[in-house]
């Protein structure tokens, strides 16, 4: 698929840049110390140059590879969006969700996760993540709210018992105090 190939290219280019940056940074730390012994910059330069080298090879490999014969692409021609849509419709999961729906779900889950991390300081660790569990189950996965609530409560209690009561992990607390 076009997008996957682009993402792969992008990732390799990013890696190449990281590798080169590491080589430059490592040189700054000093590859060798007095007497020619290995210094703090040696491994960054070594690993960085390997990353950069293989990333460049990967970019070349990905560019060179002959695009596979793709019937969808022939139908859609140069229209990438149409091609993506066609690809999505041919790829429906067991709940009848299309690719684009699932991509949206992923975005929502990531958003919920970020919100949860922000809420940890306010609500406390377990309440924040319990809320996340409930929200994902009910609003993203469209489960019935009562069983979802039950699963949430049971999970939170078990996690509390194991981590706080048994292992004495001082989880961040919020407005609900100990829990």
């Amino acid at each position, binding site marked *: 698929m076009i997008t996957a190939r682009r993402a792969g290219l992008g990732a390799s280019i990013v*890696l190449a840049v990281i590798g080169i940056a590491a080589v430059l940074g490592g040189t700054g730390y000093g590859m060798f110390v007095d007497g020619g012994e290995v210094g703090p910059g040696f491994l960054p330069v070594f690993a960085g140059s390997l990353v950069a080298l293989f990333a460049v090879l990967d970019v070349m490999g990905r560019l060179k590879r002959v695009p596979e014969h793709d019937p969808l692409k022939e139908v859609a021609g140069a229209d990438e969006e149409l091609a993506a849509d066609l690809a999505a419709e041919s790829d429906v999961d067991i709940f009848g969700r299309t690719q684009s729906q699932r991509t949206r779900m992923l975005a929502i889950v990531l958003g919920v996760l970020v919100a949860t991390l922000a809420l940890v300081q306010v609500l406390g660790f377990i309440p924040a993540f319990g809320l996340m569990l409930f929200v994902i189950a009910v609003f993203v996965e469209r489960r019935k709210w009562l069983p979802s609530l039950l699963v949430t409560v049971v999970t939170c209690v078990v996690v509390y018992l194991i981590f706080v009561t048994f292992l004495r992990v001082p989880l961040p607390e919020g407005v609900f105090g100990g829990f």
Partner: protein
Amino acid sequence: MIENLILGFQTAFTPENIFWCFIGVFAGTVIGLLPGLGSTTGVAILIPLTLTLEPVTALIMLAGIYYGAQYGGTITSVLISTPGEAASVVTTLDGYKMARNGRAGAALSISAIGSFIAAIISLALLMALAPPLANLALQFGPVENLAIMILGLVIVVSFAGGAFSRGLMMAALGLLISTVGVATGFSSARFTFGNVDLLSGIPFVEVMIGLFAVGEVLHQIRVGAAAPIRTKFRDLMITRSELKRSVGPILRGSGVGFILGILPGAGSTLASFMSYGIEKRVSKNRDQFGKGAIEGVAAPESANNAAANANFVPTLALGIPGGGTTAVLLGAFTIYGLQPGPLLFETQPTLIWGLLVSFFIGNVLLLVLNLPLAPVFGQMLRIPYGYLYPIILLTSFVGAYAVSNNFFSVLIVFVFGIIGWIMKEVDLPMAPLVLGLVLGPLFEKSLVQTSAIGQGSFLVLFEHPISVVILVFAALLAAGPSLTRRLVARRHAKQADRENDKTPVAH
């Protein structure tokens, strides 16, 4: 030897000790099931609970926790692709695939069986040969360790198979990530950008949780929920042919694990990766590796358990810990007023032999507890994914926090979760990255030490006989993959011929 064994059994085989060992195995398994909490953390956290017990009983319980936690980590590796420690990263490759094929029970059973056999073999060696082996291990200084590391990397390179260069790229990236922070022997911080939390480097446990657990969840959401794995209970049981296929990998894994486990440092992670790499070369089911080959579970699991036991060779015989967990255990020795050191075998025979026998009991208990439970654990996958994945997210983040009580860990998990998802999308392998990250500090340490010993020259690598042997071996492997492949292929061809003569084999 026999006398000592009898003494050991007399010491360890009391109902009270067995009870506490059982509690230890159980508590350890529970801890190992939690993402991020492996045996080191488990033992460290639970030491206070053992303080009320007699020294022998306490150490027996701690040994139980050690084994339990390792197996707990294996369970999560197989079921939800979340390794508990670096040594079970490889298990996710085929174990998780087996689970998704509905063979979770078989994967868990073979790791229990493989671990058990490996433990028995390595314990027998430990009991018989600990002092001489420990002296041999002392010959492995920085120079020899560097040679081992090179050999390990060469073997592991064979992993990636087709995507050879991508595997290397990820291993190098892991090495690079491992350089964040302050390295052995230097006082300057690297790539920390003024962040205090980064001074200690990027912790691999959190990276592992992020890449494997969170990354996998995000990936699954995007590819769409697979049909829940509805298998009959019977399907979760291991079959006879699977058992037969696993014999070789278990024995080879035990050998590799034991040898690497004796050496302080390199230990179980490298052992599990190496044994997987070896199986991938010699197995006749090579093409199934990465798709759910039972050999790919049996070998690394046996290797890391053998290494875990072999770790006790330097710990008990020399007072030098072989790994993270044994270091914590050694700390526990002093709490009980025992002086770790070469005289422990002579001054504390009751304790040492009691401990060795209790390792044996611990492994038996683990097998008894987990073999029947393996299919039951497999049933966990029947939880609808809509509930399962937010629960995985929750436990991953709580577990990450619990590792060091630091919110920074949580952020690392999040960041590497996203990185892991992207890697899956663009088809970059994750296991080599973890290997690089884990080996990075060890590799760098032996580099620095070797160059200090050689006063700036790496030629010392060729002056030490042991390292020369290892390097020659590595060179043979690197230069002659085609050679070995040809040899193996010829042998397999012969075997196949023979089998074909008897019955037509369905593939």
